[in-house]
C-alpha cells in the first residue's frame, strides 16, 4: 500500500477545513477523524439518526477535493451489488451477435473483459485514480455475512476477480462507516476501525450548527430553536427524537415564514417538521404542547427580549 497517499493535513488545518464546510465539531470528533486519516484506518461512526454521521464523509470528500463513493447498505445487500457484476445482458447479446456474424471465434476472454464488468462502489473505490472517500452508510442494515466479507476487503484493499485477476488499490480509500446501532456489529469490524460516537449536541453547539448552516437565522432564533429542541429531547419520551437535520429543516421553514423568534402559533404550525410519527405528535400535544414548549424555552432563555405576549423569549 502506498503510505504516501495519505493527504497531508494537520489537526488545526482539519479544524479550519471542517469549519469552512460548515461542520461544527469538537476536539473529540476532530482528533478521531484525524487519527483515522493518519493511521489509514476505517472510521466507524455511530449515533442516533440525523446527528451528522454521513455528513463527515461528505465533508471529507470536499476537504480533500476527491470523489465520494457511497455504498448505501440495506438488508439483503450482497457482494454483487457492493463489488462488481458481470453485465450478463451485454454478454448474451455479444454471444448472439458473434453467432449471427461471420466471425464466430469468440473466446471466453472476449466476454469476461473489463468492458463487461459493472463496477459497484467497493471496486470503484479500489480502482479510483485519486484517493476517494468511501462511505459505507448504515452498515448495521446488512447481515453478518456481508459484514465479514466487507472487513476482509477493508483490511487488504484488494479484490480478486476470478476472470481478471487481483485488483489492488493504488490508494487506500478514506473509509467512513456509519451505523445507527440497529444491529450489534461484529467485534472484528469494530477492532479494525477507529470509533466515534456522535451524541445529540448540547444547546451551545446546536446554536453554532444552526448559525453555520443557516446564516440567515438570527442569534436569538437559533438560541430559541436549539433550546426548544434540546427540551424536547430531554423531557419527552419520543420514539424518534428530533435530529440535527430536523432542527435545520425547522429553522429553514421558520425563516421562510419570516420568523425572528419562536411563538406558540409558529410551533403549532410547524411541529410536523420535528415529529415524524403520529405517536410522538400525540405525546407532544398531550404532555407539553406548543404553549408548554414556549414556556420552557422562555424559562431557559431569560436574557432574551420580549416581543409579544406569546413570544417564547418574553
Amino acid at each position, binding site marked *: 500500500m502506498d503510505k504516501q497517499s495519505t493527504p497531508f493535513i494537520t*489537526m488545526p488545518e482539519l479544524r479550519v477545513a471542517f469549519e469552512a464546510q460548515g461542520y461544527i465539531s469538537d476536539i473529540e470528533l476532530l*482528533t*478521531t477523524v484525524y487519527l483515522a486519516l493518519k*493511521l489509514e484506518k476505517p472510521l466507524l461512526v455511530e449515533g442516533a439518526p440525523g446527528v451528522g454521521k454521513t455528513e463527515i464523509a461528505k465533508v471529507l470528500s470536499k476537504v480533500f477535493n476527491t470523489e465520494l463513493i457511497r455504498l448505501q447498505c440495506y438488508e*439483503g445487500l450482497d457482494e*454483487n451489488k457492493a463489488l462488481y457484476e458481470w453485465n450478463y445482458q451485454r454478454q448474451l447479446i455479444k454471444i448472439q451477435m458473434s453467432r449471427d456474424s461471420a466471425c464466430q471465434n469468440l473466446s471466453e476472454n472476449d466476454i469476461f473483459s473489463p468492458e463487461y464488468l459493472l463496477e459497484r462502489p467497493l471496486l470503484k473505490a479500489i480502482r479510483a485514480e485519486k484517493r476517494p472517500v468511501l462511505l459505507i452508510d448504515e452498515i448495521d442494515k446488512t447481515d453478518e*455475512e456481508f459484514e465479514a466479507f466487507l472487513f476482509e476487503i477493508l483490511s487488504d484493499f484488494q479484490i480478486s476477480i476470478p476472470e481478471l485477476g487481483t485488483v489492488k488499490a493504488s490508494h487506500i480509500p478514506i473509509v467512513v462507516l456509519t451505523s445507527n446501532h*440497529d444491529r450489534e456489529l461484529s467485534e472484528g469490524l469494530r477492532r479494525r476501525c477507529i470509533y466515534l*460516537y456522535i451524541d445529540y449536541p448540547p444547546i451551545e453547539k446546536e446554536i453554532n450548527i444552526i448559525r453555520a448552516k443557516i446564516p440567515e437565522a438570527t442569534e436569538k432564533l437559533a438560541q430559541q430553536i436549539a433550546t426548544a429542541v434540546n427540551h424536547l429531547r430531554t423531557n419527552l419520551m419520543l420514539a424518534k427524537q428530533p435530529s440535527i437535520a430536523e432542527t435545520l429543516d425547522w429553522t429553514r421553514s421558520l425563516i421562510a415564514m419570516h420568523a425572528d423568534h419562536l411563538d406558540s402559533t409558529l410551533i403549532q404550525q410547524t411541529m410536523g417538521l420535528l415529529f415524524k410519527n403520529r405517536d410522538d405528535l400525540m405525546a407532544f400535544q398531550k404532555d407539553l404542547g406548543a404553549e408548554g414548549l414556549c414556556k420552557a424555552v422562555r424559562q431557559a432563555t431569560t436574557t432574551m427580549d420580549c416581543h409579544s405576549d406569546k413570544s417564547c423569549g418574553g
Partner: protein
Amino acid sequence: MHSLADNLVGFVQILRQLGVRVSIAETIDAVDSLTVIEQFDRDVFRAALKSTLIKNSEDQAAFDQAFNLFFVPPEAKQQQREDWDSKQQSELEQSQQAQEELVFQGRPLELPDELMDVYKRLPEQEKKRLQDFLGKTSTGHNVKESFQPVVENLLKSSLSFWQRQLSPEDLAQLAAARRQLLGHHELDHVVGSAAGLGGTGRNSLLYKNMQDIAEHEIPQVTALIKRLAHRLTTRISRRFRLTGRRKLIDIRQSIRRNTRYGGTMIALKYKTKKIHKPNIVLLCDVSASMTKYVRFTLPLLFGLSSVVKNIETFIFATDLEKVTAYFKRSDDFAQVITSLVADSAQMGQGTNLSIALTSLKADYKQLLSPSTLLFIISDANTLAPVETAGELSAISKKVKRILWLNTQPKERWGQHSAITLFSQYCAMFECYSLAHLTKILSLNLTRQP
C-alpha cells in the same frame, strides 16, 4: 509505573477489569495514535485513547470514569489511593465483624461470599435478629456440633431472601465490590472506584430495570419493542428463489430452459432473494413471581404480536392459555391488556412450566416445527423442574431454537439448579432491561437459519 507506555498498559488492564474488551491490536493502535497526534493536550490525548480503545457507545462511560480517575496529577492520585485504602480497611473490618457475628457454638459459619456481602448490608435490627437466632440455637438443649450444616442452610435461606429483595442495580454493585482486582495497588483503586460509579445514563429507559418502568413510559417501551421486532418480519435470506419479475438473471436456469432453442437465450429466468419469516411462539410467565415485570412483559407481547404476523402468543402459570386473539383485536394497548387481565385465569398464579409445555406439545403440536423460534419469558422459578427440563428437551428437538429470556439477574442464576438444567436445552439470556432485549434480538433473532 512511570513511562507513558506503562501507564497505557495499566490503563488498558483497568478497562478490561471493568468489562471493556480491549484487544492487543487496539492497544497497539492506541500507542500508534499517540505517536501521530501533534499537540499533547489532555482532551486530544483522551480522544485518541477513546477512539482507539473504545468501540461501542455502552463502554464510553466506563472509559470516562477510568480516565478521570487514572490520568490525574500525582497529588490527586495519592488522595485517591488513601481513600481507597481506607475503604478497603473498612470493608475488611466489616467482613471480620460479620465473621465474628455469624458463629455457631463459637465456630464461624461457612457461607458463600455473596451472602456474606448481603449480610453486611442488612439493616442493624435484621443483623441483630439473625445473631439472636444463632445465639439461641447454639445454646439450645441437645444442640450438637452436627447441627451446624442445618443452621448454615437456614442462614443461607434467610440471606437469599434478602438478596432477592435487592434491585439488580444493588446486585451489580455487590458484584462490582467482589470484582477480582489486578493485585496492583496503583491500578486496583481505579478499578474499585470506577466500578462503583455505575452505568452510562445515556438512554435511561433502555437501561432501566423493567420492574421500575412507570405507567407513562409504557407507550415508549411498546414503540421500542415494535421497532426491534420489525426486523423479524422482513429478514431477507441470502438464498435465492425464482421469480417472474425482472430481477437478477438466473444463468443456470436460463441455460437449462434454453437448451431446447439450441442455446439461444430466448426465455430468460430471473431470481430474487428469499424473505425469511420465522414462525414465532411466545410463552410468557404471568405467575405471581413475575408480577413485578408485567410492565415489560405485556408491552413485549403486544409489541411483538402487532408487528410479527406469524406469531402465536401464550401466557402460563399453572397451565397454558392461548392469548393470540387478544392482540389481533385492537391497536389500543391499554384496552388489550385490560381485557386480557380480566379474562385470564393464569395471572398471579403459581408456576408449573412443565404442565404448560406438556399442553403446548399436546394441543398445539402443529406450531412446533423446524422453523419455529420458541421464546420463553420467565424467571425460571417453577415447580417440577426435572419434568420441565424433560419437556424442554423434547420440544427443543422439534423447533429451530428455544430462547429463554430470564428476568433474573445473572448473578442469581447460580443459586437455582433448575436454570443450569434448563440451559442445556435452550439459549438462556439475562433480560431485565430493554438494552438486554435489544442485544438479544440483535445478536440472536436476526441470524439466518
